[in-house]
């Protein structure tokens, strides 16, 4: 009995390790992590984005593009309309509290972009989860 428990515990630990390794390897691209939990993005607790929702739905890329140019060329890093800000606020978390990529299927960015068939190029280069650096 005692031996059985030990073996099953070992198995559980091993499985846990494998799952952890899988997550680490598939960190940004695989989208294979645990599903996001509803209401876990910072944005879920706010009334509106940096501008009213109706405006953001139509014009969010204008804001990001403007910020992109002034950041790269003029060094302005205030975070009002930064993509890092979008990711930080809109990334949801899984049950373990781990961030889920904003461009994973069904997540904030892909939700609409996939539906309308508009390709999303930001995340070829930019981080898809808040990384803190």
């Amino acid at each position, binding site marked *: 009995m005692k031996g059985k428990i030990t073996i099953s515990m070992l198995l559980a630990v091993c499985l846990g390790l494998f799952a952890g390794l899988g997550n680490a390897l598939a*960190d940004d691209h695989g989208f294979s992590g645990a599903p996001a939990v509803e209401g876990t993005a910072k944005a879920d607790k706010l009334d509106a984005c940096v501008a009213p929702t109706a405006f953001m739905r139509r014009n969010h890329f204008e804001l990001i593009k403007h910020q992109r140019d002034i950041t*790269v060329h003029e060094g*302005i*890093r205030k*975070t009002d309309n930064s993509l890092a800000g979008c990711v930080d606020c809109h990334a949801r978390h899984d049950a373990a509290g781990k961030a889920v990529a904003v461009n994973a299927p069904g997540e904030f960015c892909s939700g609409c972009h996939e539906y309308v068939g508009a390709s999303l190029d930001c995340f070829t280069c930019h*981080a898809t989860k808040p990384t803190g650096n």
Partner: protein
Amino acid sequence: MSEPIDKQRRAFLATASGAAAATAVAPGVFLHAVAQAAPRDSAVTDAVRYGMLIDTTKCADGCSDCVSACDKENGLDMLVKPEGASDALWDMQRPRWIRQVKLKNNLTGRVTTLPMMCQHCEKPPCVDVCPTGASFRRADGIVMVDRHTCIGCRYCMMACPYNARSFIHENVQLKPTAAPRGKGCVESCNLCVQRRDNGGTTTACQDACKQGAIVFGDLKDANSAVSQALAKYPSVQIRADLKLNTGVRYTDV
């Protein structure tokens, strides 16, 4: 011949001009902050020009502290060898912002080691040849690539006399927020631009160098450490014959 310097008068003038520069427009609101610790909210200007002086006599053979620090700061250590690529190919093509260069004087046998990175030219050949305007020189002298407009043609890599640029050949899986990068774009040293814009005063390579071989700062400020060092020690621009007026200078080359 020259009058002795009145230190008290100088100190008074420095304080007075500092106070004038930080004129309050409303309580708690200043036109110019003395030290900028918060992220930038105004455009960079040509009032500063960032540059470096590298003392090659202090640069130790076999040391790669600056390269490792650069890799870590700018996420280059997160890049992995593409599947199927040989080690030799990866060694040749892996993105590196600092190269370790060893020079030998064949007459005397004297060996010099130095870190070679983007020299942040005043007249950068990479900017001249870029067909899309992606390669550009920021007002404060930092030569950068705007990867939003880079099409990956690599003309800049061919034009650079310092072999300072790298190309990202494969999709990048792990991307740090501060250093975005992706397949098909060229990149090179940007003098830790994220530190510049967030109020930092040093570069990662400078912080990592235990020998203190790298001095970084504003070339236009006569009181900056780099200007003082340049005034004190003989220095050269590498390939000065090209008249690019590099922002990175070396001693004892």
